[in-house]
């Protein structure tokens, strides 16, 4: 899977489950600015766990890794590389 695929999956999840109708998010949108709070971040982490069967290690659970969809997708992409 590519970084773009991860980004697309996460954006689809956000659009269907977290965000109000008509709210547009790009990979570079700062999630906090769209009202995404700590509970929503946890929901994203749980989605990743379900979707990719990947439990994110404790040391990656830092707020700077969850600033945008792109930073989250990069975590998943780097996991493949390593």
């Amino acid at each position, binding site marked *: 899977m590519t970084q773009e695929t991860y980004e697309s999956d996460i954006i689809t999840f956000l659009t269907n489950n977290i965000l109000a109708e008509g*709210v547009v998010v790009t990979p570079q949108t700062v999630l906090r600015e769209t009202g995404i709070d700590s509970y929503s971040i946890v929901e994203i982490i749980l989605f990743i766990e379900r979707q990719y069967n990947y439990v994110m290690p404790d040391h990656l659970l830092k707020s700077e890794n969850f600033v945008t969809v792109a930073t989250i997708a990069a975590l998943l992409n780097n996991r493949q590389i390593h």
Partner: protein
Amino acid sequence: MQLFSTTGKFIKKRYNHRGPSPPDSSIMTFLPKKIYLNGSDCFHLMLEKSRELTREGNNQFYLCVQLQTREALETIEQTVQQSPLLDWIANIRLINPQIGVPFFRYMNQGNTLTVRHHENFTEQFPAQLLNDTLSLKNNSFFRIDAYSFNGKQYLLLTFHHVLFDGKGAGMMLQHLTGQLPVDNTTFSSLFPQQLKWKNPLRQWQNLIRVKKQVEQTNKAETAYLEVKNNRETGFGMTSHLFSEEETAFIRENAIKNGVRFGLNFFQVACIAKAFRTVLTETDSQWVPIPYNGRKRGVPGAIISNHTSFIFHRLNVTPETSLREIAVQLQQQMNEQLKCGLPEKYNDLLQLMRFFPAWFNHLVTTQSSKGKIASFLYSSTEAGEKENTELVKQQWILPPFSYPPGFTVNFYTYHNRLNFHIVFSRKHVDSEQINTFKTTLIHLLTQK
């Protein structure tokens, strides 16, 4: 997921004001004629019934605002006079039939909502105003009081919980301070949207799932506050405001204790630990934690309650560490979010709409033996759109909820954390509350 219902019928407003400065009628404003209460609103109607029966506490909460200057009050008063939203609130009636779903009806009777001015108070949060109960019978849902304390100008906004939740209260302040303008393009989004139809069979399945979760978490041997002094009546309140440096330290402390996103679980862990250490001798606690049910990315509705809950059963002994409590909270939240429990809980609440409040009260108190929680907790962080030119500091004061008669509310504004504790004097005395407060501050800030 749309949780909130209206008929979707809007009427074009005809202004009929007796006040000096009516809302700007040049704006084409459309006001909802009828808004049905959602399940969460009906839960608060049930709490109102409980309040009537126990004659304890209230079902209103407060936003206390310290203004930057006295002139700021004039700016806010202008908004109050001109706001179509406040005009709507001043002219609605709660229709609560024995059979059928309760609703708010807009009457357009020309009532106006004004700021009540008071002389100096000797308390920052004046008991006289806090104990002045908003009456559903009088269709009184929102009040604004202005007063000074220590030479500083304050506003106290009082919200009836049947019409507002904490997030809506924050948005109301944004509206009053000009950060959330109301015009014909945004107005309808401030009201709840029409409820989407759901399969009744699925709703009943969800009800059973939530009932099971509640029974599992709220089983026997749960820590509740015992009545210690029947002679004492009423509620007490105490608060604390942390500095910016202390708030930053508490954030670091949360991370050190394994809490990664936000302060919520660290705050709850500290309360649970202090509750066990100071107020009870039982190790098991039942703690429902509010979960914001609003969709993100838009201001969302100011009107009506949008809060769901996640239920936690915590095992807290005097030796349990904050990190261990945080892990329990995190694991239980993950399990419940995975199976969509907050949404299922809302389905359960939606059923409350079809029964009268006395019936809901009867069923709820039978199933939970009259207990609501070991303690109540809520937390809010002011948004990015706060008007710091007008507002210097703000505090949310929680309702005097009874039962359980013990609520802790955290609020962050301008990078400063504050908390409020409200407690029933029947259950907790002054010495205990002082020890609890000191312990809570120590746990939050200990190195």
